């Protein structure tokens, strides 16, 4: 008997049962994939570094005699062991595709043989690259940001007099140099190809290099110990490498927010659907109770039914969560190994949790059965002779038409069901808005203070011009004067300055560091912002980032020894500041300090301020002119400059995530609208038939149903607009905090995009989903009023 009732019920309420099943599948899919992604992101870098077999310290040496460096390392007391990975250095001009330079990179590129790899490199599917076929090569790092490669593309690498044509084998994930902030791309090739290049006499003389992966018990002591290794391009501890992944971590952090939102949405949906479907069952409950079935049996019937649906949904959802989760992860982890070994177990646990949650919801919802008399149950769970008031608005007093009024009245009369829908739409919208605000802020001048630069009209970041300073061909002052003259000669009178980068050795209480100091004669130290203390006022005063100060164990007021060009002087720390330059390993000198031109070996970019203070439109037209004058494409406004400092890859990744999340959100919103509207139609069949019988046209009823969704979407849009700024601050500030912006950042909010485009997209998706589903109402005829129970 029990089974027969159950079977009949499943058959008769096919639509609602299918809708519930779909919601369970969605909830399981979101929950399992999201929890897996949360674990993958939280343990992301640790897991990646562990899998890659990273060391505690890293040195890239251009010494012709790597064995001598190895000997030095063996002598260091804090070095417990080290591995040497031989490399060949190349410059951006050496790497071409069909004779054209692939990309410009400010530092050197490295080529290595897979047989000599001392860390694990991963392919795009996170498999360890164990071998590379002859004639093929994997590319890693910054080169992948600007250049589009397709498998099978041929590239030419010329080292010395030897040129090799290599076929692109795919992305290589390089834990050491693969982050968006690192500027050394690598080419991983077959040993025979590598030996061909290494055998070149010129290469032996000019291109030999080695990467040393050094381990030691104390990272800080190791850093101090290794600060005097000569001929290094990079000499950093693992913490700096970790920091270099900050942008990738931000993007992964966004995935975390996406995941939390998806879990929230799925459980809200489940809660709604279960209470909705159980409320629909009250008539049956009443009849069963009237027939004499015990409470336990009635409740058991529903619990068994929902357990069956939940179990089937959870199994399907679990299998769907695997590709869905991978899809989400791959959108943010093209350069990182993100994933967890226990994803299947986590997925199973999540699926079980979803079943348990559903059963808990059902247990709670069916608790009412005990208290209800058969008559109460027949009255849809309401007790007493008087029912609570439903309609809130009055048609007689309203100025709205019948369709509009009915839609609005329905929304306000059933706040629970439409409220839940509004909450889901709001969460979805907030998610997209937060991502958009973050992406727009990362690509805007609002982050300029973190780049330790002042605001200028335009910026030139041409690598050739910067390289002239780096190689000592010219000085910063000379280069600025040259640019200024050329622009003035071309009718663009201006002043040019540049933030010079100096790399002195800083020592305090026996701690030695080589941070990068910013120095600009043409600006004042007080022009920059500081998080603590006061701007340096005299030549013997400096500001440090909290990260450098922490490593030195120095505070404001302490006197530190700084050696520039072999000359050591004492400087007072007067302030701390926030910086994203050189991964936050930064300090600032006062402008009155006489730093020898030879010590300034790099610049951030050449900043141009026109004498006539042009407006934005004029600046844009001048950018084109300056590009022509200097024959370079690397001329930007402030937004572009910030972007070039952060890395184009980050912007593209965040934009990619933004579009991806928008797409997922639109799909979710459409699915929710479809499923909800379908359940509304099922529940409101009598009213639909009645409206048709009264003479409402089908399109009027469809419009009424669609309008209800539109009203929900509009309320959600208003709520999301009001909440977007505080929610963005709440969710994204901690992420910027990790980057060094501990006091938060000023967000770049694009009102049209955030407050108009996204709400319209979500509202349109809602309306589309609801309207298309409402077409189903065509099957309900006016005469169905006679069939209603």
């Amino acid at each position, binding site marked *: 008997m029990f089974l027969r009732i159950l079977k009949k019920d499943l058959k008769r309420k096919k639509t609602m049962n299918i809708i519930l099943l779909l919601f369970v599948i969605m909830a399981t899919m979101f929950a399992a994939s999201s929890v897996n992604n949360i674990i993958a992101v939280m343990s992301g870098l640790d897991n990646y570094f562990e899998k890659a077999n990273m060391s505690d310290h890293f040195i890239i040496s251009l010494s012709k005699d790597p064995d001598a460096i190895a000997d030095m390392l063996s002598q260091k007391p804090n070095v417990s062991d080290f591995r040497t990975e031989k490399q060949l250095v190349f410059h951006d001009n050496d790497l071409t595709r069909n004779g054209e330079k692939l990309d410009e990179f400010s530092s050197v590129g490295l080529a290595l043989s897979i047989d000599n790899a001392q860390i694990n490199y991963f392919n795009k599917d996170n498999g360890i690259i164990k071998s590379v076929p002859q004639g093929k090569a994997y590319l890693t790092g910054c080169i992948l940001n600007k250049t589009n490669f397709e498998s099978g593309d041929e590239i030419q690498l010329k080292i010395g007099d030897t040129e090799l044509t290599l076929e692109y084998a795919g992305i290589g994930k390089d834990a050491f140099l693969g982050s968006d902030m690192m500027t050394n791309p690598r080419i991983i090739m077959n040993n025979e190809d590598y030996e061909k290049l290494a055998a070149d006499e010129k290469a032996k003389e000019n291109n030999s290099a080695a990467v040393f992966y050094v381990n030691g018990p104390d990272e800080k002591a190791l850093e101090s110990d290794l600060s005097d290794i000569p001929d290094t391009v990079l000499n950093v501890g693992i913490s700096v490498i970790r920091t270099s992944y900050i942008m990738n971590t931000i993007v992964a952090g966004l995935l975390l927010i996406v995941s939390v939102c998806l879990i929230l949405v799925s459980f809200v949906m489940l809660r709604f659907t279960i209470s909705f479907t159980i409320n629909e069952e009250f008539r049956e409950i009443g009849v069963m109770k009237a027939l004499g079935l015990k409470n336990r049996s009635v409740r058991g019937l529903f619990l068994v039914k929902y357990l069956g649906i939940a179990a089937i949904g959870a199994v399907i959802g679990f299998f769907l969560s695997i590709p869905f989760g991978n899809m989400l992860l791959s959108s943010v982890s093209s350069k990182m190994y993100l994933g967890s070994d226990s994803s299947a177990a986590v997925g199973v646990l999540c699926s079980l949790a979803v079943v348990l949650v559903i059963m808990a919801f059902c247990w709670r919802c069916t608790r009412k059965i005990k208290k209800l008399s058969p008559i109460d149950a027949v009255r849809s769970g309401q007790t007493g002779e008087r029912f609570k008031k439903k309609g809130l608005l009055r*048609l007689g007093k309203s100025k709205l038409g019948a369709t509009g009024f009915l839609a609005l009245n329905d929304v306000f009369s059933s706040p629970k069901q439409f409220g839940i829908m509004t909450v889901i739409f709001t969460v979805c919208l907030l998610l997209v808005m937060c991502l958009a605000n973050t992406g727009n802020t990362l690509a805007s001048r609002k982050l300029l203070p973190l780049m330790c630069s002042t605001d200028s009209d335009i910026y030139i970041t041409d690598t050739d011009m910067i390289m002239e300073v780096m190689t000592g061909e010219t000085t910063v002052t000379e280069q600025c004067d040259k640019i200024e003259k050329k622009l003035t000669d071309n009718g663009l009178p201006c002043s040019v300055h540049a933030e010079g980068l100096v790399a002195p050795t800083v020592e305090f209480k026996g701690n030695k560091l080589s941070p990068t100091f910013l120095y600009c004669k043409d600006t004042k130290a007080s022009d920059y912002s500081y998080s603590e203390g006061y701007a340096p006022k005299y030549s013997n005063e400096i500001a440090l980032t909290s990260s450098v100060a922490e490593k030195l164990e120095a505070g404001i007021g302490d006197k530190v020894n700084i050696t520039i060009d072999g000359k050591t002087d004492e400087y007072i720390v007067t302030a701390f500041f926030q910086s994203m330059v050189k991964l936050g390993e930064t300090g600032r000198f006062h402008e009155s300090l006489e730093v020898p031109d030879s010590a300034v070996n790099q610049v951030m970019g050449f900043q141009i301020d026109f004498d006539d203070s042009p407006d934005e439109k004029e600046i844009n037209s001048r950018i084109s002119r300056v590009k022509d004058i200097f024959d370079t494409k690397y001329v930007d406004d402030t937004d572009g400059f910030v972007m070039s400092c952060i890395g184009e890859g980050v912007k593209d990744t965040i934009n990619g995530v933004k579009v991806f999340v928008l797409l997922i959100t639109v799909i979710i919103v459409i699915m929710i609208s479809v499923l909800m509207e379908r359940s509304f139609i099922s529940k409101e069949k009598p*009213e639909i038939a009645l409206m*048709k019988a009264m003479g409402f046209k089908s399109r009027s009823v469809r419009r009424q149903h669609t309008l209800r969704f539109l009203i929900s979407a509009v309320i959600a849009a208003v709520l999301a607009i009001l909440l977007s700024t505080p929610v963005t601050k709440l969710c994204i500030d901690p992420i910027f905090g990790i980057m060094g912006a501990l006091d938060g950042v000023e967000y770049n909010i694009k009102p049209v995009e955030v407050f108009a485009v996204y709400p319209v997209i979500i509202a349109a998706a809602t309306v589309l989903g609801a309207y298309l589903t409402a077409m189903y109402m065509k099957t309900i005829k*006016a005469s169905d009023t006679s069939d*209603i129970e």
Partner: protein
Amino acid sequence: MSKNTILEVKDLCKTYIINKRQNNVLRNVSFHIDKGEMVAVMGPSGSGKSTLLYTVSGMDKMTAGDVKFCGKSLSEQSENSLAEMRLDDMGFIFQQMYMMKNLSIIDNIILPAVKSSKKKESRKEILSRGQDLMHKLGISEVGENDINEVSGGQLQRACICRSMINDPQMIFADEPTGALNRTSSDEVMEELTKLNSEGTTIMLVTHDSKVAAKCSRVLYIVDGNIRGEYNIKKEQPLHDRERGLNNWLMEMGW
């Protein structure tokens, strides 16, 4: 079709296909109703009474035959014009007193008038007309109540008000007293009779000979065919009419 005829039904057939089996619910039904008539349709359960009512009112599609309402053939009308006809020219009363759950009684009553563009009335005028109708049917005190807060009789009278709000040419009622007790049933029939005496044409389906006796004509339907027609002499006292009708029904096999 005479000038006085409001509904003319010719060879009406209605067939349902259930589990690939053809079920002929109405078989070549023909009859007509003149303006101002009050016609009852009676017959055993499953004989096709309600199907007939829904098909001739355009709520359901006919399989064959022709139905002319106010001279217009329903089979030639589009879904939209049928909806317009139902809104402006027809009124419906159902056994189960269906109403919009989220609306008050008065709002349910005036809803068709708000939707209709037949009369160019302000919302105030519509409301006042709705209140007048409620007053006429003796339920003016429950206008602001929700549909759950009134008795079955009051609700059915509200349904009558709703069916009357657009001054329809004809009211179709499907067992309007079926869910009511005798007192409420009498009250509702009294209202319908009053409406009819004021000129409204009514076609109603009923199982109750007491209800049918208040009509001017009774159609008796069996297995989708009109088996017979009985004209009631209105001038006779009610109990005589009832007796006469019951005798006729017994002859029909009731």
